[in-house]
């Protein structure tokens, strides 16, 4: 028996799942990213001038890509795992010889693929209007991949804790979206009062968005080493948490 096959099969299953509902999973970010680019970038952006020496549309794009990566990674794993728990077909997976780490890895890999496709799509839509300079290409992938995996883990954790569908969107509405917006998708913290600048630094999304901004543009509100560290630490923490939950059987093995 080849150990990799089980893992690959589950990754494939996760990818097929979101492709079969592509209208709900892949298309909406492309439409809404176009709207953001049009309204904030092309219309209002002209009045904003430059931030950190780059035109506003360029400034907001990395943040926007990160926002979609975060949302889509979270949505993919949270709905995939929650529905499988809710309809009980998670048991089909739990009786297989995949290790718990393999299960978690495969499911977050599904989230990674979906969010990377969306990142590429948003990037493609944006490319029509503006060029991003790719200041540090390797760092672009470092941030995109680690942040995607981190929120894939968060999606799984919430899917395990949740008792109803609406619990999944509660986390999006009250935690993820506010933190992403306050994290500086559309603004630099230099534009905020001093106290809020300090508060912003406790928001992990601030480091993700600025990390990617630095990778693309070479400008950031936060030191790049700090951004890299926060992103890596969060991933390790949430991944370990997810594997531990699977291993302990929390809400899975009653």
């Amino acid at each position, binding site marked *: 028996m080849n150990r990799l096959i089980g893992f690959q099969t589950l990754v494939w299953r996760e990818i097929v799942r979101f492709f079969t509902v592509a209208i709900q999973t892949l298309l909406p970010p492309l439409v809404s990213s176009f709207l953001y680019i049009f309204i904030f970038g092309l219309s209002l952006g002209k009045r904003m001038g430059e931030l950190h020496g780059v035109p506003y549309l360029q400034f907001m794009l990395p943040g926007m890509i990160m926002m979609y990566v975060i949302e889509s990674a979270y949505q993919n794993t949270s709905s995939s795992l929650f529905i*499988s728990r809710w309809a*009980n077909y998670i048991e089909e997976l739990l009786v297989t010889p995949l290790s718990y780490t393999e299960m978690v890895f495969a499911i977050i890999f599904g989230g990674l693929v979906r969010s990377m496709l969306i990142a590429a799509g948003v990037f493609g839509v944006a490319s029509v209007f503006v060029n991003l300079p790719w200041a540090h290409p390797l760092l672009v992938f470092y941030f995109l991949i680690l942040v995607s995996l981190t929120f894939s883990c968060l999606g799984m954790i919430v899917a395990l804790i949740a008792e109803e569908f609406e619990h999944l969107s509660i986390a999006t509405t009250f935690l993820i979206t506010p933190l992403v917006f306050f994290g500086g998708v559309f603004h630099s913290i230099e534009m905020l009062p001093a106290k809020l600048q300090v508060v912003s630094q406790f928001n992990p999304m601030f480091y993700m968005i600025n990390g990617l901004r630095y990778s693309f543009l070479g400008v950031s509100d936060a030191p790049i080493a700090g951004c890299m560290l926060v992103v890596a630490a969060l991933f390790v923490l949430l991944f370990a948490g997810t594997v531990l939950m699977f291993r302990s059987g929390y809400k899975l093995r009653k």
Partner: protein
Amino acid sequence: MQAVEIKNLSKFYGKFRALDKLSFEVKEGDFFGFLGPNGAGKTTAIRVLTGLANYKEGDVRVFGHDVIKEYRKTRSLIGLVPQEFNFDPFFSAEWILRLEGGYFGMGTKEAKQRAEELLKMLNLWEKRDQDYKKLSGGMKRRLLIARALMHRPKLLILDEPTAGVDIELRFELWEFLRKLNREGTTLILTTHYIEEAEQLCDTISVIHEGRMLTVEKKNDLVRKMYHGEIELETKQALAEIPQELLSLGAVYDFKTRRLKLMQANGVLNTALKILVGAGIEIEKVEVREPKLEEAFLKLIREKKS
């Protein structure tokens, strides 16, 4: 080699003790019936074996491997046919099987071949492209069995496999399971249809309130628990019962003119001789074979009282 060894397995749901120091073994190659009233703990024990439920007390082994420490090994040896349909709703019947093969480490080609083989064997080939939700109840049951067999498990566990299945299909499935067993697969079957266990199983266990009441060869259990009955109807009501019959344990109902005796070797012969010797005419003779159902009910009733 024991296919299953469970020792002192206890499991609680809150304060409710679902399994209470449950212990039993299933020999390799056995067709093992796991009977008990609703809520006795059958499904819980199966969930522990297959990794769908945790436990804190006890020792559970499958072909000598610990189901917690060596879960990957034990899960690769077990095929589970669950009570409820739990198919992945995003895939067709064939792909449900092929995915299952993949999870168990089968390559694409091998999984495709095995899926085809099983779909044909279980008369599902025509429906291979259908969404499982569009299959009939009986087809879904067969698909559950096919899925459990994808990786050629050494131990197949069936939790109420014929619930809601019509008689014809039930007979077909019985034949299919017998064949699997003859070919060397160890089977554990829980069922509400005692007749099913009687037809299929070599060993019968009865679980009640999380404890094992008995594990015995089917025939021994039936004989031990319930001996069968002989009923003789006399043409005329007897004035009195011959003493020799009373010493055989006979009971006579003067109204129905029926004489009841426990079945045992030579009892019928002796009773007939006595009756004929006493000049009593017999109108009807009925011999009721021992039934597992009666043994089962007796066991449960004894436990309750």
